């Protein structure tokens, strides 16, 4: 492309999915002014997301990567697959939140717009091949989620969550900017490929200032992924935010964080692999320990799932630590599976929330198997999947990650990881135990809705099908990411 000309309209083509999503958000916002009920708004968001998904598949970025905006943006298989995860996340979140937001008396039309804007931010992150675009996407995502976390205006915990998330998020953004500027100072560019080329040409892989820049950038990502010791915000924010937002946040920003982590580490800092592996290993071990052990003492189910998602982030990180493209594939595969099982689990948490009943305590799950056998059975499936017991998808995800880890000669890490996953089994089992083995006198009412049923059916089906016959997805992830 002729760089003199700069940006042409043709550059917008790979950007169409993002455009569709952003327009969806804007129109949803307008629509909200016209229609009283929020149902059409929610339906429109789902429709817009499907259109964006269709557009992305039509663009065929999976087979032939298309870059745009002076190589600041790319639509390739890697980005495409992450966007698929974001779309699934968005649609499922909308499905599980419609009824819930009404019960919480926070059913604002902006809710759906903000979800789409956050998704647009994640999509830009996944496609970013320049640190500036990356930052742009990250901020769009972050600002939207800050507001989402505080959406229950009259709830003090929700306010606290938003504020906490905002402050810590702002810190992490500062870290990111500092890291970017250090990197720019050393290499003179913010483009990922050019950074990589400069590091090799100038032979500055061992440069301490560049290393410091890398550390700052990774710190910012670790915040978004909620890796210990940067996970402190997660339990409070997850607990305070509306449950549907928690479900959205536990998947979306995490996946986006992994998308940028993978691309920045592999593309820009590939020659510094030894250094970043040495940072990631202690991070992963600490995260594993914190997530699995602290979750043992939680009695609030949202807090427990928050710590569980911290622990899961560490298993995903193992695929990155393996340091091979195949390892990255295993991480992405894990993310897809995690999307289904985690949103499924949160969907059940939402199901228990009804007028005047919070349903967030472990005690509220007493005797659920008797009063609502189907809901209990689904929760059982999700809990065992999160534990990683076959024949659920959670096992396939873990197995793949461990496989690539051992292939990269890091067997000791795999041993530690399985030990922690055995520890974490206890708190998942405890939920099952409360549902099936303890009785309650109080009758339970659950708040079902058609869209919720669809979301539950899809997540449960995927968790089981991917557990028994994972081949299509494994094959797909592999070909998509390797191109």
């Amino acid at each position: 492309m002729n760089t003199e000309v700069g940006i042409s309209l043709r550059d917008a083509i790979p950007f169409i999915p993002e455009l569709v999503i952003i327009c969806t958000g804007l129109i949803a916002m307008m629509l909200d002014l016209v229609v009283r009920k929020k149902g059409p708004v929610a339906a429109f968001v789902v429709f817009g997301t499907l259109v964006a998904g269709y557009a992305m598949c039509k663009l065929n970025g999976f087979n032939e990567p298309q870059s745009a905006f002076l190589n600041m943006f790319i639509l390739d298989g890697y980005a495409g697959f992450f966007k698929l995860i974001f779309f699934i996340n968005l649609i499922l979140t909308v499905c599980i939140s419609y009824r819930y937001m009404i019960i919480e008396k926070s059913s604002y039309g902006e809710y759906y717009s903000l979800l789409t804007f956050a998704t647009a931010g994640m999509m830009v992150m996944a496609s970013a091949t320049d640190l500036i675009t990356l930052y742009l996407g990250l901020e769009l995502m972050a600002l939207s989620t800050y507001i989402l976390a505080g959406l229950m205006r009259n709830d003090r915990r929700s306010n606290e969550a938003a504020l906490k998330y905002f402050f810590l998020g702002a810190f992490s953004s500062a870290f990111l900017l500092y890291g970017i500027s250090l990197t720019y100072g050393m290499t003179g560019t913010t483009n990922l490929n050019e950074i990589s080329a400069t590091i090799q040409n100038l032979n500055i892989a061992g440069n301490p200032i560049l290393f410091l820049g890398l550390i700052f950038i990774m710190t910012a990502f670790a915040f978004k992924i909620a890796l210990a010791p940067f996970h402190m915000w997660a339990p409070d924010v997850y607990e305070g935010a509306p449950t549907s937002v928690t479900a959205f946040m536990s998947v979306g920003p995490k996946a986006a964080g992994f998308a940028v982590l993978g691309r920045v580490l592999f593309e820009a800092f590939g020659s510094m692999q030894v250094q970043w592996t040495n940072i990631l290993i202690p991070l992963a071990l600490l995260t594993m320990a914190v997530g699995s052990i602290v979750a043992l003492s939680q009695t609030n189910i949202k807090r427990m799932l928050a710590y569980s998602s911290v622990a899961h982030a560490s298993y995903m990180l193992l695929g990155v630590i393996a340091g091979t493209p195949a390892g990255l594939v295993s991480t992405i595969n894990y993310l897809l599976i995690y999307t289904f099982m985690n949103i499924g689990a949160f969907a059940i948490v939402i199901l228990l929330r009804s007028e005047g009943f919070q349903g967030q305590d472990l005690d509220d799950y007493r005797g659920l198997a008797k009063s609502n056998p189907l809901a209990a059975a689904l929760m059982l499936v999700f809990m065992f999947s999160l534990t990683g017991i076959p024949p659920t998808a959670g096992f396939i995800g873990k197995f793949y990650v461990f496989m690539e880890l051992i292939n990269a000669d890091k067997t000791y890490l795999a041993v530690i990881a399985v030990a922690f996953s055995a520890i974490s089994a206890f708190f998942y089992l405890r939920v099952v135990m409360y549902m099936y083995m303890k009785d309650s006198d109080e009758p339970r009412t659950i708040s079902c809705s058609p869209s919720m049923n669809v979301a539950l059916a899809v997540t449960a089906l995927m968790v089981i099908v991917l557990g028994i016959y994972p081949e299509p997805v494994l094959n797909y992830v592999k070909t998509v990411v390797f191109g």
Partner: protein
Amino acid sequence: MDNVIMNNLDYPILSWTVLLPVFGSLLLLFMQNARAVRWTALIFTLLTFAISLPLLTQFDKGTHLMQFVEKHEWIPSWGINYIIGIDGISILFVFLTTILSILCVLVSWNSINTRVREFHIAILAMEAAMVGVFVSLDFFLFYLFWEAMLIPMFLLIGVWGGANKLYASIKFFLYTLVGSVLMLVGIVVLYFAGGKTLDILTLSTLSLPMGLQFWLFLAFFAAFAVKVPMFPVHTWLPDAHTEAPTAGSVILAGVLIKMGAYGFLRFSMPMLPDATRLFIPVLMVLSVVAIIYGALVCFAQKDFKRLIAYSSVSHMGFVTLGLFAMNTQGVEGGILQMINHGIITGAMFLMIGMIYERTHTRVISEYGGFAKIVPWYAGLFCILTFASVGLPGTNGFVGEFLIIFGAFKAKQIIGVLSALGIILGAGYMLRLYQDIFFQDAAPDFEKKGKHPVWDLDMREVLTLAPLLLLVFWIGFYPNTFLSYMHASVEHLISRVNYTAYAGQENLIAKYIMEIF
């Protein structure tokens, strides 16, 4: 595939044996009526048994090759296939599983009254997973069944169990899970060492470096030893067996703990023959400790069911002793004793469940004089007691005799010590029998007492009959069953004894030094 005999029946017999219970449990999801649920479960277990019968008649006893093999592509990205088949080692376990499952449904007919549907779904799911474990010829498939089984078993103990069920179910789950996940790491390491395959038959012909074999053996040992359970990781067993509902105890004692020993036979021994030989002394000592320790602990038990549970520790000690004697008599005795133990202890748990339904107590001292109150029950329990003790004419004698014979051949002192275990076994079993059935009648349970205690009814006798028949069949003519395993056992022993490092014990010692 030239080293296996493909399934030449018109239908995929092994797949059907695995899948029928799955279909049954799916069907049960849509049923509400408890009676209909019971009948459906019974029909499906009976059908599964019926469909597995041709395995016994069509089996070619003259070869050690895998038979009735079915192979389909499953996860080609990882080089993992759906391969199932059986040989002389696994065939009897499939048979044992399908028969015990029927009895589990029968014995729960009156005793399970809460959440009947879920109970039977769990039983059928267990059956499918257990058969799956024994027929899998791919390590990944095996692991899938091996772990999946934890879910229904956890629920069986935790939902329908006794007073201390929560503790027992969690303990069971975590113990087995910790062992299994370590094996999982071993499986993946083996996957790469064996050239990206988890095909059991291929892996069984490898000659892996000694250092690798050493670590893999330990990883597999973690999973199998917990399941058997071997001393000192046996502590989950008394709790789980005691708290589980009758059907759960029968499955646990009858089939589930056999999987550990089966794992040694199918994986550790043929895949890691050199490490196996290295560890044999340790394993034999652990087995003898289990035999004697388990028996001694039995003397101190006050709970009927717990006593039988601890006796399992002792009996499984015999099984592992036989297997690790690594000669024809020992291994065949070990396998046969697994079947025997499944029959005897399975039947005993059935009978304990039956009497518990009437008396609602398991405390031994509250019993007494039951020979007068329930004479038929006493008579049948007497047969089982003698079989458990190993009286000639019962199946227990054949198994234990072969094992001790094998142990003597391998190491005399071990043989002597294990024989001591038999004497102790006779001690606690006869004392139990005396406490329960003789002496003065317990005041609570006499005809005029508060609980009427009636003798066995037709359903209960029918439940026990097949097992009692097998007690005598194996006791008088064990060759019916032993003949299935000869070829496979010989092949296994030759595999363990003649490999790359055979006869080079110094070399092995050197490898060990290198490891540390």
